[in-house]
C-alpha cells in the first residue's frame, strides 16, 4: 500500500480500507484478483453447467463428455420427469415438507431463543448447552427410534410424521441461530417495555420479533433448504408413493432401477429440484440483507 495514494490529486482522502496502488502494478493486481475469482466461480459452476446442457440432450445422443450445448435441444426430459415420473407431485410434497418444517422450527425456536435470552431461571445455561449439543447428533442416529415412535403413534405415511421429525431435527440449529441474534438485542428495550407495563408476550411479539426479522428470515431459509434436500426422513417416514419427495424420487431415478442410466433424464430431475432453491435464495437473500440494514439502527 502506498500512502498518500495520489499526491497530485488535490484534497487528501482518508485511507480506504483496500486501496490498490496506481499504475501497471495495480492493474496487474486487479487482473490477478479477478482471474482468480473467475477461475473459482468456473470451478463452482461447471457441474451446474454440465447438468443444464445434459438435461436438454436426448438420451440416445448423450455421450457423457459434452462441454458444448447440443445443437438440437429438447424439453422432452423435463416433460417426462414432470408428468410421467410424477415429479409434479413430488415437487409439491417437497415444498410442503420443507416449508412446514421450516415454519414450525423457526416459530418454536423464536420463542425458545427469546426465553433463553430474557428469562432468568435455574439451569438456563445448562439447558441451552444441552440444546446446542444435540446439533452434533446426526439424523441417521435417531432414525430408527424415530421410525419406531412414528409407527407406534400411527403416523407413518401421514403428513405430520416427516414434517414434525424434520422440524425437530432443525430445532437445535434454529434455536442456536436465533439465540445468538436475540442475545445481541439491547436489553434496555425490554427493560423499558417492562417498566411500561408490557407482558413478556407483548415484549416478544412487538419488540423481539420485529427486530429479529433478518435472523428469522435466515433461519427459515436455511431450515427450508435443509429440509428440501433431506433424503433420510422422507424416505423412512413417507413411504407411500403419493408422499414421495423430489430427493427420494431422484434417488429412485438412479441406475439401479432400469439397469441402464438415463443421465439426461436424471439431470432434468436434478435441475427441477434445485431450481426453487436458487430462486428462493436469490429472493430471500435480498430480504435478509434489507432486514439487516433496517435492523442495524437500534
Amino acid at each position: 500500500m502506498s500512502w498518500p495514494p495520489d499526491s497530485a490529486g488535490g484534497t487528501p482522502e482518508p485511507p480506504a480500507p483496500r486501496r490498490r496502488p496506481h499504475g501497471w502494478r495495480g492493474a496487474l493486481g486487479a487482473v490477478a484478483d479477478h482471474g482468480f475469482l473467475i477461475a473459482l466461480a468456473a470451478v463452482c459452476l461447471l457441474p451446474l453447467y454440465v447438468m443444464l446442457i445434459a438435461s436438454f440432450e436426448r438420451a440416445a445422443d448423450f455421450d457423457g463428455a459434452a462441454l458444448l450445448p447440443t445443437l438440437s435441444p429438447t424439453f422432452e426430459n423435463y416433460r417426462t420427469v414432470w408428468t410421467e415420473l410424477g415429479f409434479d407431485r413430488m415437487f409439491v410434497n417437497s415444498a410442503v415438507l420443507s416449508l412446514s418444517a421450516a415454519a414450525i422450527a423457526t416459530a418454536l425456536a423464536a420463542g425458545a431463543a427469546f426465553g433463553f435470552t430474557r428469562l432468568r431461571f435455574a439451569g438456563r445455561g445448562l439447558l441451552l448447552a444441552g440444546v446446542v449439543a444435540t446439533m452434533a447428533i446426526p439424523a441417521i442416529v435417531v432414525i430408527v427410534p424415530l421410525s419406531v415412535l412414528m409407527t407406534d403413534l400411527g403416523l407413518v405415511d401421514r403428513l405430520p410424521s416427516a414434517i414434525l421429525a424434520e422440524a425437530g431435527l432443525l430445532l437445535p440449529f434454529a434455536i442456536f441461530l436465533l439465540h445468538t441474534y436475540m442475545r445481541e438485542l439491547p436489553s434496555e428495550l425490554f427493560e423499558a417495555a417492562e417498566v411500561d407495563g408490557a407482558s413478556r408476550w407483548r415484549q416478544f411479539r412487538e419488540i423481539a420479533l420485529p427486530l429479529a426479522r433478518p435472523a428469522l428470515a435466515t433461519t427459515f431459509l436455511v431450515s427450508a433448504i435443509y429440509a428440501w434436500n433431506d433424503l433420510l426422513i422422507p424416505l423412512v417416514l413417507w413411504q407411500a408413493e403419493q408422499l414421495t419427495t423430489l430427493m427420494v424420487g431422484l434417488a429412485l431415478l438412479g441406475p439401479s432401477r432400469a439397469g441402464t442410466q438415463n443421465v439426461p433424464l436424471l439431470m432434468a430431475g436434478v435441475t427441477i429440484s434445485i431450481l426453487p432453491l436458487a430462486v428462493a435464495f436469490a429472493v430471500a437473500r435480498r430480504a435478509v440483507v434489507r432486514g439487516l440494514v433496517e435492523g442495524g439502527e437500534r
Partner: protein
Amino acid sequence: MASLALIGARKAYPGGAEALRGVDLAVADGELMVLVGPSGCGKTTALRAIAGLERLTDGTVEIDGEDVGALEPAARDVAMVFQSYALYPSMTVARNLSFGLRARGVARAERDRRVREIARLLELEELLDRRPRQLSGGQRQRVAMGRAIVREPRAFLMDEPLSNLDARLRVQMRGEIVRLQARLGATMVYVTHDQVEALTMGRRVAVMDAGRIRQCDTPAALYERPADTFVARFIGSPPASLLRGRLGEGRDGELECVIGGVAVALGAGAEAARPALRAAVGGELVVGVPADGFALAPGGAAGIPGTVALAELLGAETLVHVELAGAGEGGAAATVVGRFGRGVAAVPGDPVAVALVPDRLDYFDPETGLALDRPAVA
C-alpha cells in the same frame, strides 16, 4: 405523583461486588432530586432499584410509603427514561408514545387523545409517523420523554438522558426538563455524572461515591459546605483544591493554619462558624480551597509563595493553576486552581503569592476526610 424512598438499600452481586452499600434517600412528592457521582458509584443501580429492574439484596424501596420491593416494574407505575432512550426501533413515534398505554389496556380514544396532547406539548406532531432512526438525537430524546410523560406515572426516573446530546442541546434540554418537571409537578429522580447538570437542575442533589450517598443537600450547600473531601473534589467547576495544613493559635489567641510554611490567620468568623476547629488545634487538617477561595498577588507579596503552572483562558474567565511547595500531604507540592477574570496577570513559570480567603475555606479531618464541622442546617 408520589414520594419515593430508598431505606438502607444494599445491592451485592454474585462475586462480591457491591453497587449499593446502605443508601438512604427520600424524595418528596413533586421534588426533582438529582443523583450525581462518578461512573460506577451506584447511582444507576439506585435508580433501577426504584424502577424494579434490580432487586435489592437488603433494604426497602417505598413509593408513597408503601414497600414495593416485591412488585414487578409494571406494578410500580413509574416511568423511566434511559440513557440510550431505548425507543422501540420497529415502531413509529406515535406507537412508541402509545406503547405503555396499550400495554396497560387504555382505550383507543383515550390513548389517541393523550398521544396528541403530549406530541403538542413536546412539539412532536410532525414526527408522529417517523421511526426512531429517522430522528435526530434531540428528537429521540423528546420522544423518550414523551413516552414517559404520556403514561402519567407516579414518578419519573431519568438515567443520564442528556449524555448523548451535544453540549448546546444539552444545555437547552436541561432547562426544558426543569420547566416540564415544574409544570407537571412531577416527582423526579435524575441521574447524571455531570456535576454542572446536577447543580443547575436539582432542588436537592445527592452526591454518591462507592455505593454510598456522601451528601444530600441543596446545590448551594454542596458547594459552600461540602460534607467531606470527596464532595469538595467533585462539586464545582473547577472543584475545590485540597491542601495540607497544621492548625495552631496565633499570638492573640486567634486560630491560624500553617500551609506551605506560611501562617494563615483564619479570623474570628471561622471559629464562630466551626466551633470544632478549636479542638483540632495542634493537629493536621485538610484545607479545601474553592476556585473563588484565594486571590493572586505578585511574587513576594503577603501569602503562600507559589509558581503559576498553567493559565487556561475560558472566554470570560481564566483558570489559574498555582503550584505551592510543601502544601500537600507529607510536605509534597500541591496545586490550587482558581477562577479569575480574563485580565488576570498569570504567566506559567511566574512566581506569585496566594492569599487565601479564610471565609471561603473548608476544613476536613485528614483521617476520615469528613468536614470538621458538619454544616448547620442549610
